[in-house]
């Protein structure tokens, strides 16, 4: 479904990685590993289409993602390291806007169910600015629990700032998404069960080492 062909990323003067190729098909999880500054977030942003690779191409169902931008975006759910919450909107309103922009139904019932999934249903009517860091992360991740979901999830450090209960819930969600034929790309420094079974792994440290040697 998702194919990367000889991706290269250059930020400023620095070449982060080059000649990176992989393919992701239904039911697979790809874990991007690497030290801080090795280009994990850049790779994820390239995979979203937010950043253009300096060389190479990404293909979704055989077509370049940059030529089929809207079509690709409809199949994609991205949770970045920013929570994408408006401080002055309530948790429900934030979710509603996210759902509507993703072309999904935005009725309050669905939003509450998604918030409940991450145990933040009691914060539904609170403005995001009064929520704690962990609660904000949970609200941001509640987008994953919104049905119907997109087939491809791209998650940047989804486990950061979460407590044990939320980590368990997120793992359950990831597992069921994979089981139903979804695809997940994520970066994490934590060792979690579902990630340990990752079918694919891209290690940017090796890339860095190869580039330094060259």
């Amino acid at each position: 479904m998702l194919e990367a062909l000889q991706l290269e990323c250059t930020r400023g003067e620095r070449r982060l990685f080059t000649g990176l190729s992989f393919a992701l098909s239904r039911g697979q999880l790809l874990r991007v590993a690497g030290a801080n500054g090795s280009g994990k977030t850049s790779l994820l942003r390239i995979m979203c289409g937010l950043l253009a690779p300096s060389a190479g191409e990404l293909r979704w169902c055989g077509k370049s993602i940059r030529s089929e931008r809207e079509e690709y975006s409809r199949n994609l759910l991205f949770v970045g390291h920013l929570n994408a919450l408006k401080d002055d909107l309530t948790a429900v309103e934030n979710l509603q806007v996210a759902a509507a922009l993703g072309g999904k139904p935005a009725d309050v019932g669905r939003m509450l169910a998604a918030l409940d999934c991450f145990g933040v249903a009691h914060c539904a009517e609170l403005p995001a600015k009064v929520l704690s860091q962990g609660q904000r992360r949970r609200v941001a991740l509640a987008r994953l629990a919104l049905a119907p979901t997109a087939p491809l999830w791209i998650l940047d450090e989804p486990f950061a700032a979460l407590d044990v209960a939320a980590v368990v819930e997120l793992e359950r969600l990831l597992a069921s998404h994979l089981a139903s034929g979804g695809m997940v790309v994520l970066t994490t420094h934590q060792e979690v069960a579902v990630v340990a079974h990752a079918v694919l792994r891209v290690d940017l440290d090796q890339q860095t080492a190869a580039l330094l040697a060259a």
Partner: protein
Amino acid sequence: MIRALGWVLRRDLLLAFRRRGDVVNALVFFVIVVSLFPLGVGPEASQLRNMAPGVLWVAALLACMLSLARLFAPDHQDGTLEQMLLAGEPLVVLVLGKVISHWLMSGLPLVLMAPLLGLQFDLPADSLAVLCVSLLIGTPVLSLIGSVGAALTLGVRGSGVLVSLLVLPLYVPVLIFGAGSVVATANGTGAEAHLLLLGGFLALSLVLAPWATAAALRIAME
């Protein structure tokens, strides 16, 4: 597409309602600038009448420019802009929604306030009417052109100054024909030509500006 546009509008209006201070700021600036002129220049009616169109239009233009900084920067900071770029809807539509809400919050209050302020300058009724119409056609152009500048300077240090430099030359024709329409009414030559030109600017910027803004946003996010 219409649904996404509606949601962007709804979101931005709700945010503006929750942060009323920001909206009031631009309006208060407009009122203060315009009200200070009669006090500074003196109460001679004919002189005030002559300068009224220029003063009102310049103040409206500056008030509109002040609020440009809030058009995309907050969304850029909290990551919601990123999500808009990844929405399954054309970015142009979402940009248009944001520009419309910007105009509703910064342009429309000025249009409604202008006749009241025009009275301070002893403007006759027909001039007041033309002033309102010219602002009604002209302020959306200011928002549209401003959105391109705001998108181009997103995430740049000193973007406030830069946006003025970028946008002001493009604002000048709007200012000339906007203020000119009121002067023409006062002279008795009629404002139709000026207003038609303003309408032309609006049509042109409505077609071109959202595309330019969308392209600039994509570049800014890289």
